[in-house]
Structures are given as structure tokens and as C-alpha cells.
């Protein structure tokens, strides 16, 4: 049984065509608003959507940064051997002197208790130097120190070890007094043997000299600056709707379907289709270590959300591009670290503010520019090229909270999503 619509018909007929003229002063205000160049009265600009190869540009920038960083890093590594062959100065004597003193003590200890180790020097003993062997004219000091440094260098040093000096030392392995005739043959034998090749795992000093300690990235990294690009798998969201929504622009319908008693427009059947491209974001952040395992990260992020709205009746298509600026805040926890690799966990949130919305629909209402809160969690992997540069990848999940806004973006259409962040990390004071 059809519902009685008489109440609605009477109400509609009574108020249909009703005119309540406003005060005259309202026109003055409207006229002033039209004449003033306020943002509210500014005509929305038609935006020509020029396809810019953002992805290609971003990839090119990342590749360029990687190349530059690798080249710079290699130059630093090549410079290290030069520093090691400089004549020992007072400043450089600090660490090297300590190494030599330790070698001397070991030699003395071995000399005090001659064992078979004397005939077959242990690789862990290092060079058997005495004070007399190290004394001498100042001209030969640098060469002797160079020999000691060379002997302490691990066999797998990345750079070729400097050649030992041609002038032989005047000391015997067992602490023979200086001044004796240099035993070249014995010395050459010693040089050829592996007794003086210090294996890095057994010689902490050499290891410290040759390679930084294997410690968690956060701890050894210090404050790091990050540049990244990210996106999430909102995909090509297509949402069908069968009604007009408030944010929709006024659809000019020149052909009105008038009912017999009303000027009110009877909305025809129409469908609305939304398509949201995967949002793209770039950002810069700082990671500040708190402990050897924990750290926090914050910075700035810029996101672009592109959407297309298509209506069937009347057939219209509207393109929208929303720009967001956000501040993320994450807590990082390092879980695994080995050599140049590092794995960590990250969790936190982000606040974003829509700073601009562009649309190519001239009838669109003044766009709403809402805030956007979100939560994120990710597991990251990092590869260190050198002390100052590393590349990281962070797959994770994000959830965008619903905001009371008429602006439709991928955030509202796809609140829960998979995220992927790719970036470069620059260590400011890594050791």
C-alpha cells in the first residue's frame, strides 16, 4: 500500500514559490564581497593537469644522491692510507703509541718466559719490538713506527700495506741489545713469516684501527638526516555512489524536471564514481638516538593526493589534487645489526594539514582543507654504503583516521593501507 503523501504534497505546495525578501543591507554586503579580492570570493582557478614525471624525477634524484654519496665515501676511504703513512707527529702518536706500548709489553712478557712461542711466535703476539729497537736516530723513528704499524695491520686490509723500510732494525726479537749488527737474514725471515701478521679477530687494536666496531646502527649512527619517498597501496580505488554528496559541486542542470506543483528540482538517477590514485609523499626527517637501541624520528612530509570524480548524469568529470604537509613522529627500535645491514622497527603517528586543493571544476564549492591524523608501523631494513650514507626501505602499515570533512581523498576512501618508504640516511656524526 502506498504511503499517504498528502502531508508532503500540502507542505510542498504551501512553501513552494514562497518568497521572503531579505533586508536591503544584504545586497550591500554582497556587493562589497564581490568587489573585494578576498580568497572566499576568488574564482577557482582552472588547473591544467600537466603530467609531470614525478616518479622518474624522484628516482633520478635518489640515484644521483646515491652515486654522489658513494663517490664521496670512496674518496674518504682512499684517503685513509695516506694518513697512515704520514710521518708520525705528536698528534698521531697517541693511538699508535699505545699500540706499540702494548706490543712492547707482550714482547717483554714473552722474553721473560721463553717458551716454544719464541721459536714459533704466536700470531697474537704481534711484532716483538723492544725499546731499543724503537730507539735510534730520529730519522729512523718514522720508518720504525711505520714498520710497526704495517705489522699490526690485518692481512685483509682494504689498502695495500706500505712496504717496510729497507733499513733494517737493529733489534733482535728476543730483546737483544741495540747496536748489534743487523741480522738481515733473520729479519727477512721474520718479515716473511706470518708471525707478525696480526689477525684482526685476535687483535682488538688492529681491528679497531681497521674497521669500526659492529654496533647497532642507531648507536653508531648518531643523529642522521633522512630523505625519502613513500607511497601506499590505495590503488585505483573506485567507489560507486548513487547520490549527490555535499562536497560535490553544484551540478548545473539547465533542463529542470519540474513537478506540477513545485519548482524544486527532482534529481535524476545518477551515479558517482571516485578514483583515487596512490598518494605520493616525499619528506625529510631527523633520527635522534636515545639509547643504543631506541631512537625517535621526526621531520616534515609533503603528500599529493590525486582523485577523479565521474558523474553519469549529467556526464561530468572532475579532477582534484590535494596537497598535504605533515609532521611525523616515530619511535625506532633496532632489532638486528650485522656488518653493513641493520633491521629495525618503527611505530608512531603523523599529523597532516591540507594546504591546497586544486580542482578543474569551476562550480566547485570552496574546498575544505582539513587536518588528518594517522598511525603508522613499519619494519625497516638499512644498508650502509659507508659511514655517512645508507639506504633504507620501510614497508609497513598505516591507518588514517576519519575526519569530518567533505573533502574526499584516498585517506577517506582507503583508511587502512600498506605503505612503502624508500630513502637515504645521512649520518652526521657517525663513528
Amino acid at each position, binding site marked *: 500500500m502506498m504511503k499517504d503523501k498528502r502531508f508532503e504534497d500540502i507542505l510542498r505546495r504551501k*512553501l513552494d514559490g514562497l518568497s*521572503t525578501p*531579505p533586508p536591503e543591507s544584504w*545586497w550591500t554586503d554582497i556587493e562589497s564581497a564581490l568587489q573585494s579580492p578576498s580568497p572566499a570570493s576568488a574564482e577557482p582557478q582552472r588547473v591544467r593537469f600537466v603530467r609531470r614525471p614525478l616518479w622518474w624525477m624522484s628516482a633520478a634524484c635518489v640515484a644521483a644522491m646515491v652515486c654522489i654519496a658513494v663517490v664521496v665515501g670512496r674518496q674518504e676511504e682512499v684517503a685513509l692510507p695516506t694518513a697512515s703513512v704520514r710521518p708520525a707527529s705528536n698528534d698521531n702518536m697517541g693511538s699508535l703509541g699505545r699500540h706499540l706500548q702494548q706490543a712492547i709489553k707482550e714482547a717483554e712478557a714473552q722474553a721473560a718466559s721463553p717458551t716454544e712461542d719464541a721459536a714459533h711466535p704466536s700470531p697474537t703476539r704481534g711484532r716483538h719490538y723492544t725499546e731499543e729497537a724503537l730507539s735510534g736516530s730520529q730519522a729512523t723513528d718514522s720508518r720504525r713506527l711505520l714498520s710497526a704499524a704495517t705489522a699490526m695491520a690485518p692481512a685483509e686490509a682494504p689498502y695495500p700495506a706500505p712496504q717496510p723500510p729497507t733499513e733494517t732494525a737493529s733489534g733482535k726479537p728476543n730483546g737483544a741489545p741495540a747496536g748489534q749488527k743487523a741480522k738481515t737474514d733473520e729479519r727477512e725471515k721474520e718479515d716473511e713469516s706470518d708471525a707478525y701478521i696480526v689477525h684482526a679477530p685476535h687483535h682488538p687494536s688492529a681491528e679497531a684501527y681497521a674497521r669500526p666496531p659492529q654496533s647497532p646502527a642507531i648507536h653508531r649512527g648518531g643523529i642522521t638526516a633522512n630523505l625519502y619517498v613513500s607511497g601506499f597501496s590505495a590503488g585505483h580505488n573506485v567507489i560507486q555512489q548513487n547520490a549527490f554528496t555535499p562536497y560535490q559541486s553544484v551540478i548545473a542542470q539547465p533542463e529542470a524536471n519540474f513537478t*506540477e506543483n513545485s519548482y*524544486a528540482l527532482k534529481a535524476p538517477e545518477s551515479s558517482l564514481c571516485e578514483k583515487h590514485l596512490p598518494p605520493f609523499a616525499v619528506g625529510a626527517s631527523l633520527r635522534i638516538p636515545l639509547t643504543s637501541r631506541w631512537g625517535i624520528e621526526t621531520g616534515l612530509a609533503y603528500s599529493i593526493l590525486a582523485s577523479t570524480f565521474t558523474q553519469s548524469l549529467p556526464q561530468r568529470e572532475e579532477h582534484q589534487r590535494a596537497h598535504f604537509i605533515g609532521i611525523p613522529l616515530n619511535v625506532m627500535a633496532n632489532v638486528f645489526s650485522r656488518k653493513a645491514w641493520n633491521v629495525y622497527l618503527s611505530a608512531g603517528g603523523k599529523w597532516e594539514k591540507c594546504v591546497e586543493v586544486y580542482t578543474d571544476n569551476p562550480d566547485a564549492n570552496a574546498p575544505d582543507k582539513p587536518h588528518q591524523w594517522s598511525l603508522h608501523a613499519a619494519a625497516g631494513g638499512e644498508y650502509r654504503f659507508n659511514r655517512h650514507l645508507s639506504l633504507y626501505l620501510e614497508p609497513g602499515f598505516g591507518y588514517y583516521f576519519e575526519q569530518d570533512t567533505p573533502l574526499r581523498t584516498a585517506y577517506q576512501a582507503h583508511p587502512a593501507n600498506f605503505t612503502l618508504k624508500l630513502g637515504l640516511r645521512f649520518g652526521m656524526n657517525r663513528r
Partner: protein
Amino acid sequence: MTADNKPREEARQMWTIPRCLPTTAPEERPSELGASRSAQEEAGNSMDIPTEKALLQHLKAGEASASKDLYTRFAGMVCAICRRYLSDEEDVKDAVQETFIRVFHHIAGFEYRQEGGLQAWIARIASNESLKMVRAAHLLPMDSLEDDFEATDEEMAELEQLSPETILELVRQLPEGYRTILNLYVFEEKSHKEIADILGISPMTSASQYCRAKRLLQKMITEKQKSLDR
């Protein structure tokens, strides 16, 4: 067929000028707008094409008086629509202002098809602006269940006796959510599903809120009628 059994097309041709026009005397109208209303009615010209068309031509030509003419012609209608949605007079003023600002900014892109098209376009803008203000005020109904309400013959007779201005005032006294759904259902002739999509509520909520609105409005009409009878 219409309520009085007249063919729909004939009924459409009966009213020559939209009834929402301000009731100004013909001699007060600018002469460039064409013949007076009464003259057109006497001539039985059902398609008042030159009036809106001429107005649009003057507007697009950038004539200074054209804007005021358009405002004068449609301000009453726009104000009535906004007052149906909004109870606060300041909100009504803002909605009317925003409506005409948008109309003047986009009038250049409006494509004239037939008489009444401009009026319908402006009416739709006014409804959208009013609805936007309602949503901005976050005064939307909550989910609830309510039985359907059917007005009795006596209640409908009371509704018939009241003047349009009185009914408008009663509608404005309804709670915001009720009033919004009433406007969308009765005057915009949206379905409850469409209303639910617009307001972000469920169709069941829309239906129950409309029933509450109708019941409350009918109660207010009855009380008003009693007060008038005293």
C-alpha cells in the same frame, strides 16, 4: 495527470512566470527586461524565455545594473530556501551571500537552455550552501528507530489553513537535524537512501528522523492553529 486531472504538459504551460518572483509592480522593473508580468500572463505566453535570457545576456555583457536585477529577482526565493534550512538569521545571511557570490562568479559558464533553468540552478546553489552550513554546524541526527507517522485528515486540514509564512516559521523552529531531513525529503524530493548518503547516516535513521520531524511539525501546527482560533 496532475491533482486536478489536467494533463501534465498543459499544467506546465499554465504558469508563465515562476511563482517565486518578487511581487514587484511591472513598472518598477527595468524596461530592458521585457514585457511586464501581467502583460505576459494576459498574452498566455508560457515560455518566458526573453526574461531570463535577456538577464543572462546583460550579465554576461557586464552591465552594472544586471547584477542588482538578478539579485532582486531571485533574492526572495533564495532567502526562503535558506530560511527553510537555517534557523539563525546570521546563518541565513551568510548562506544567501555565499549563494549569490557563487552565482555571480559562475554565471559566465552557465549555459541557458530554457526558461526556469537559471532559477533552478540558483535554487540548487542555495540548497547546497544551506546544507553545507548545516553540516558545518555538526548538528546531524543520531541513529534511532521510530515508527512511521501518518497525519490524519484533520491534521492535514489544519496544515491547509495556515499561511505559507506561518508554516515556514514552524519549520524553522524544528531541531536542526529534523529540519534538514524534512527539507531534503519534502522539497528536494530525495529518497531516504540519498539522504543517508548526503548526511552520512543510515537510511533507517533518515526515515525515523523524518517521521519524528513530521510528527513534531504536525504537533506544532495543531498548537498554532489552536492559538489562532482563540
